[in-house]
């Protein structure tokens, strides 16, 4: 059965981070247009990431000996929600900070930790994640990328797709088949850290319908990695990836993707004096919905802080979070479209249009709705 998510207070020491971050962000992002900020964790800006690093705000949960802050998940929660709600361009360091760093800390050798983690904390090593392949989709166990053991290392062949920001990243942590065949499904998969500057790596950005190039296809043509490219145990890739996905699903990323639009619309309502019954109700509905999900997300952070691994609960919160992220553009669009006599500022309209179009992708990242609901159903003991 799924565990209760009890109301949890963010400890005062972590909460104290908030005003500092907020002050920094109002300077750093105050002049960015809202439709640019709406890209938030697709927004790639190494300079911004280095500013955060300079303040000690990367690797908050990584140990001090590897350059981190040695703090807990609550501090990361506060940092993340302030960054995301402000629409800060966090993409450069995000994956490394959130997923790759913790993964290396958990499964890496001492040498790997010393090699990668300090650079992650300094915003000098950016990571991307290689999971999906052209014919795999949600069925990750069917991947065909292969890493063949050769003397002194691994020989990689195959391709990955939908890799966010591969063209800007230094490394990819790729799920590869190291033994067995596709029919073996979950057996024989491993995770490999690929240096994307190696010969034989080709990266082709894919333009999305909003005109951005956030996704890439990455081709491996006889790429030769050294032995220590393997992270964790050979053949242990599947449980490692799932631990990583659970981690990905538990963060506030799954809640705030439409937040810049909400804040812009709120300002628009105040400026135009729009406060009819429908507007008031809609504001209250969206905000109270967000407040409950935020409380659930904080509760997950509490579980992480206690060393628990709330995989099923994280799926539940993620599915709910995606729902509101996708609902906000629908709802706000309708509110604006139903007041055709009130002019909509161009920046608000651009923000709306961007999020309307990209919202469907919110339920693809980190597991589709069907995958998540299957996990929840199993967690509930449906058999």
């Amino acid at each position, binding site marked *: 059965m*799924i565990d*209760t*998510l*009890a*109301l*949890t*207070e*963010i400890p005062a020491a972590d*909460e104290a981070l*908030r005003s500092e971050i907020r002050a920094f962000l109002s300077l750093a992002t105050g002049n960015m247009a809202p439709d640019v900020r709406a890209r938030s964790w697709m927004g790639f800006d190494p300079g911004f990431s280095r500013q955060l690093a300079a303040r000690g705000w990367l690797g908050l949960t990584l140990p001090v000996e590897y350059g981190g802050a040695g703090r807990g998940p609550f501090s990361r929660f506060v940092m993340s*929600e*302030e960054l995301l*709600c402000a629409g800060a361009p966090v993409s450069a360091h995000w994956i490394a900070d959130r997923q790759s760093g913790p993964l290396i800390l958990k499964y890496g050798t001492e040498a790997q930790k010393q090699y990668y983690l300090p650079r992650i904390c300094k915003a000098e090593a950016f990571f991307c994640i290689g999971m999906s392949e052209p014919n795999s989709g949600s069925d990750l166990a069917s991947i065909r990328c292969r890493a063949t053991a050769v003397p002194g290392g691994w020989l990689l062949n195959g391709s990955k797709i939908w890799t966010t920001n591969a063209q800007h990243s230094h490394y990819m942590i790729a799920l590869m088949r190291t033994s067995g065949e596709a029919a073996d499904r979950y057996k024989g998969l491993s995770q490999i850290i690929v240096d994307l500057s190696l010969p034989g790596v080709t990266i082709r950005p894919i333009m999305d319908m909003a005109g951005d190039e956030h996704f890439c296809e990455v081709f491996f043509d006889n790429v030769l990695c050294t032995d220590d490219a393997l992270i964790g145990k050979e053949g242990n890739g599947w449980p490692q990836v799932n631990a990583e996905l659970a981690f990905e699903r538990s963060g506030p990323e799954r809640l705030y993707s439409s*937040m810049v639009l*909400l*804040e812009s619309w*709120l300002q628009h*309502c*105040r400026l135009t004096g729009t*406060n009819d*019954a429908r*507007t*008031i*109700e*809609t*504001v*209250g*509905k*969206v*905000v*109270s*919905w*967000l*407040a*409950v*999900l*935020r*409380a*659930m997300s*904080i*509760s997950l952070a509490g579980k992480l802080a206690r060393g628990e691994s709330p995989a099923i*609960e994280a799926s*539940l919160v993620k*599915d*709910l979070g995606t729902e509101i992220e996708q609902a906000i553009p629908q709802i706000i669009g309708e509110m604006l479209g139903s007041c055709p006599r009130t002019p909509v500022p161009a920046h608000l309209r651009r923000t709306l249009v961007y999020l309307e179009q990209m919202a469907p992708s919110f339920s693809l990242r980190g597991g589709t709705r*069907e995958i*998540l*609901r*299957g996990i*929840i*159903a199993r967690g*509930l*003991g*449906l*058999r």
Partner: protein
Amino acid sequence: MDTLYADSVERLFSQISTPASIRAIESGQSTDAMWKEIEQSGFLDALLPESLEGAGLNLAQVFPMFLSAGRYAVPVPFAQTMLARAWLFAAGVTPPKGPISIAGLGVRADKGTVDADALPFGRVSAWVLADMGGDIALLPTAEASSLFSGGPGSLSASLQWITRPGAGIAIAASKSARVGLDQLAAASYAALIAGAAERVLAMTLDYANQRKQFGKPIGKFQAIQNQISVMAERTWASRMAAELACRSADWSPRFLMAALGKARCSEAAGLIADMAHAVHGAIGVTDEYGLHLYTRRLREWRLCAGAESYWASRIGAQLLSQPETTALAFICEELSAQAA
């Protein structure tokens, strides 16, 4: 300590609020015996200070008891009586014995008559703590005419006092200004909804695992799994919303937090009831099966004391009126564990 209390309340309700005893009370049997057991347990005074033989707990600490009352669809106003007693004590009035309903919105006092419509525990209360537009009184149900308002099996009633009740206890307006009855009612029903939702989900899971169609348990079908996952999501979210509504360092709920709890729990209640019935199919509609013991209450509690848009609007109006506050800041400051 909280867990100890919660466990013994849960044990008590599992013994006295069985489907059979709920049905007996629904069909008109007296609540006296059940009420006596609850009264003797001492929990009704848990929010009163220890000096008054209370337990000196705060609202957050009694929240699990409210959840239990919802989970067992306890057919008397347990949570409301606890809150009413604490409220009366704070207003300087000694709480009377007997079950108390709270009518925080929509009580009408015209030309001598007082009307409280569709009170969920109207049939089983001795008193109604009623807000008649700022003028608050404790009204005895014995002096009211009562009209069943919820169909078969419901404990709801619309109560009417033809003249201002003689035995009613008026409360000085100044004493009661701090905590509105509307927010007491909102917080209590939010918690009851969250509790009943847990029960309804559990019944639905059991049924989906047992019932077979097309050669396998229906819980194996993707469409059913999908629905039950959504039910579970709403149930977990309702619990969190209700816990926020009852987050408080003292006995009383905060206005915006109570509003949030009722808004979200009301919105979920109808959906959870509908999905439970959709999965159960025809058997769920029968009187005998008893799913309705819980879903009927989900629907009544959803609409009473202000349904979802009423309370969402209270929150929206507040945020819109604060010119410089972002939604995130508002949530952190007014709608979070920290806020209480």
